[in-house]
C-alpha cells in the first residue's frame, strides 16, 4: 500500500476541496476501498474520510423513502418500514456480504463498489478498466464474475451490487452533490456500460459525492422481492439475481418491474418489455416468455452462459412468488 494523506472533513466545502485532486478517494466504511488499496488496485494520494458529513438521514414520508449515503447496510436491512414498503431492498441488502461487512459498509459505498473480476483485482494482467487500451484478460477466460449482457470488446465485468438491482427495479433516484451544486439521476441513468470507456463506471463526476437515494413507495414497491442465486448458500456474490415488483389488480398485471443482477455489466432492466405485460394475466408462460426476451442478446462462453437459464428460472420463480404473496 502506498502512503497517503488523511483528511476528515466535517463540512461539504472542505470535502469537495479535498476530493478535487484526482488522486483523492472518499472513504466511509472502508470495506471497498481498503480491500482495493491492499490489492494495489487503488493507490490514492489522499484518503478523504467522509463519515463525519451529515449524510445519514433515513426517513419515510408520503414522498417515499430517503436513505442517506452514510446509512449502513445493516441499518437498511433491519429497518421495518423498508421491509414493509420495499421488501426487495431489505432482501437485497441482507443477501449481500456478511454481518460484519454490512455493519461497516454504507449505501453510497454499496453503489460505488468495484467489480469482482479477478483480472481487475489482480496485478499481473492487462485491464482496460485500470489502464485504458491495455487489453482485457477476462475475454476468453471468463467465469462467474463476468457478464453475459452489456459486454463490450473492452470489458465484460459484472457490477456486483445486490442493492442496486433492487433500487433499479423500484425506480430509485440517486442524489449527488459536488462543488458545483446538486443534481439527481435515475439509477438507470447513473450506471454506464463499459462500451469504449470501461474506466467510466458511473455518472459520478470528479469530486462529487452520492448524498442519498430516494425510492418512491407504492403498492408496486410493497409487493417486491429479491432472489439471489449463487454457488454457496451465503457470503458470495450472485451468479444471477432478480429484483422484481408486481402489482396485480382484478387478476391482471397492473404494473411490473424486473431488474437482473450478476449477469450484466450494469444492473439490467427493459421497461419496454415490462409495458407489454400490462393487462395480461400473470401466468407461468407469460413470465417465461418475458424472461427469454429480457435475456435476449446474452453472449458469453461455456463458463458463463449457464447464467441464461439460471436467470430465466429466477425471473419465473420471483414473479410467481410475487403473484401468490
Amino acid at each position, binding site marked *: 500500500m502506498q502512503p497517503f494523506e488523511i483528511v476528515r472533513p466535517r463540512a461539504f466545502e472542505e470535502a469537495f476541496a479535498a476530493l478535487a485532486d484526482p488522486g483523492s478517494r472518499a472513504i466511509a466504511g472502508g470495506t471497498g476501498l481498503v480491500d482495493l488499496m491492499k490489492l494495489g488496485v487503488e493507490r490514492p494520494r489522499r484518503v478523504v474520510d467522509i463519515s463525519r458529513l451529515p449524510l445519514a438521514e433515513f426517513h419515510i414520508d408520503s414522498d417515499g423513502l430517503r436513505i442517506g449515503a452514510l446509512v449502513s447496510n445493516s441499518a437498511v436491512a433491519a429497518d421495518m418500514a423498508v421491509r414493509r414498503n420495499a421488501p426487495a431492498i431489505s432482501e437485497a441488502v441482507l443477501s449481500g456480504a456478511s454481518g460484519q461487512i454490512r455493519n461497516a459498509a454504507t449505501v453510497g459505498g454499496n453503489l460505488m463498489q468495484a467489480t469482482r473480476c479477478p483480472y481487475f483485482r489482480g496485478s499481473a494482467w492487462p485491464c482496460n478498466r485500470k489502464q485504458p487500451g491495455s487489453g482485457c484478460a477476462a475475454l476468453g477466460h471468463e467465469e462467474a464474475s463476468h457478464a453475459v449482457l452489456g459486454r463490450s470488446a473492452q470489458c465484460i465485468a459484472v457490477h456486483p451490487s445486490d442493492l442496486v438491482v433492487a433500487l433499479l427495479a423500484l425506480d430509485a433516484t440517486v442524489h449527488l452533490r459536488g462543488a458545483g451544486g446538486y443534481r439527481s439521476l435515475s439509477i438507470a441513468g447513473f450506471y454506464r456500460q463499459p462500451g469504449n470507456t470501461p474506466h467510466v463506471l458511473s455518472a459520478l463526476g470528479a469530486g462529487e459525492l452520492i448524498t442519498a437515494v430516494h425510492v418512491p413507495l407504492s403498492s408496486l414497491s410493497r409487493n417486491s422481492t429479491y432472489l439471489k442465486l449463487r454457488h454457496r448458500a*451465503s457470503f458470495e456474490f450472485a451468479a444471477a439475481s432478480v429484483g422484481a415488483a408486481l402489482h396485480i389488480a382484478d387478476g391482471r398485471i397492473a404494473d411490473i418491474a424486473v431488474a437482473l443482477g450478476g449477469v450484466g455489466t450494469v444492473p439490467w432492466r427493459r421497461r419496454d418489455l415490462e409495458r407489454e405485460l400490462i393487462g395480461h394475466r400473470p401466468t407461468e408462460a407469460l413470465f417465461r416468455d418475458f424472461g427469454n426476451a429480457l435475456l435476449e442478446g446474452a453472449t458469453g462462453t461455456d463458463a458463463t452462459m449457464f447464467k441464461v437459464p439460471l436467470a430465466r428460472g429466477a425471473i419465473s420463480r420471483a414473479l410467481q412468488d410475487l403473484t401468490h404473496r
Partner: protein
Amino acid sequence: MSHPDDSHCTLVRLTVNGRPVEVRVDVRRTLLDLLREDLSLFGTKKGCDLGQCGACTVHIDGERRLSCLQLAALADGREVRTIEGVAGPDGELHPLQQAFIRHDAMQCGFCTPGQIMSALAILAEGGPADEADLRERLSGNLCRCGAYDGIVKAIMDVADAAV
C-alpha cells in the same frame, strides 16, 4: 512498518477492552495490525487480510466488524473489544466460551476468536430464531476445520439458555 517514516504517521487514541491506548502508527496500518503488533493482543487472527474469512472480527463501538478492513487511523476515538476482553477480570470464562469447550466447537482454534466475537454480537442483537438463522448470520466466519456443527450447537445452547 515497524519504523515508519514519520511523514505518514499519525497518533491514534482508542479504548481497547476498557483501557485507553495511544499509539503512533503508519497511516496504512489496519486495526488488526495495531491490535496484534502494537498492543500484543494476538487473540484476533489474520486469516485472509481481505475481509473474506472473519477471523479478524472484533467489536467497534459495540458492532461486530472486520479489523483487517479498518484503517487504524480512522478508528480514532472508538471503543474496541477483542477476544481478550471477553472473559471476566479474574479470568472466568464467559458462558459462550464455556459452551464452545463443552460442545467441542473448535479443532485448530484459529477461527475461534472471530466466531466468538461474531456470536456475541448476534446474541446481543436478538435471536437467533433457529439454527438456519444462526448459520446465515454467522456466514461471515469461515472454519476450515469444519467445526461448524459444534460452533452452532454452542451458540444455540447459550441462546436458548438466555430465553
